[in-house]
């Protein structure tokens, strides 16, 4: 039978591992991306560090701001 402090340590490290995995997943899904689809069915991903990606993310940021300042029509 393991000593009581072992049980506590295992449990705490288990929770820490879970939290670390959650944060890794969260970082992954929250990463910004820009994807362009062509008429021929192909698509291109532009990273945030590329010139096109930067321009797309900047323009998208302005659209997000406009949507936040919505006025009643």
């Amino acid at each position, binding site marked *: 039978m393991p000593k009581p402090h072992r049980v506590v340590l295992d449990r705490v490290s288990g929770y820490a591992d879970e939290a670390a995995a959650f944060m890794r997943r969260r970082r992954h899904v929250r990463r910004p991306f820009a994807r362009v689809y062509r008429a021929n069915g192909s698509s291109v991903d532009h990273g945030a560090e590329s010139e096109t990606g930067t321009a797309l993310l900047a323009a998208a940021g302005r659209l997000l701001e406009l949507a936040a300042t919505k*006025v009643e029509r």
Partner: protein
Amino acid sequence: MSQETRASDTAGILAHVPDRQLAAHSLDHLMELSPEMRGGAILEADAVLAATGDEPGWGDSAAALLAAADADGESAEQVHVATEAGEVFVLREGSLTAVAVTERFVLASLMAFDMRATLRDLAAGGPATDRAAPGAN
């Protein structure tokens, strides 16, 4: 080419040119279909037909986004940009363009389907729900 064929082609070219009121109605309909939408706009070429706020702002920002998407020389049909603050979809259908700003993690394929259907309905004369069914009355 026969006169009949020529006449039907001309009618097709001159078919429906969406007006601003109809476009506003279509945008409202799109927002009803997609409750996760925060705002949007419908453009024809560079002109804003309808938007949920500052129309010139939507036109300029959408044009900037499409210019960036077309930068490699090929015309983009659809653009999807996701940031931590939300997601942006831009879709072209003929001469019409729809822009939608949504919450994060929206289903991209569903959003694109709704946007495409809205633009097709607008080009055909407005939201399908508003058109009388054949044989009605």
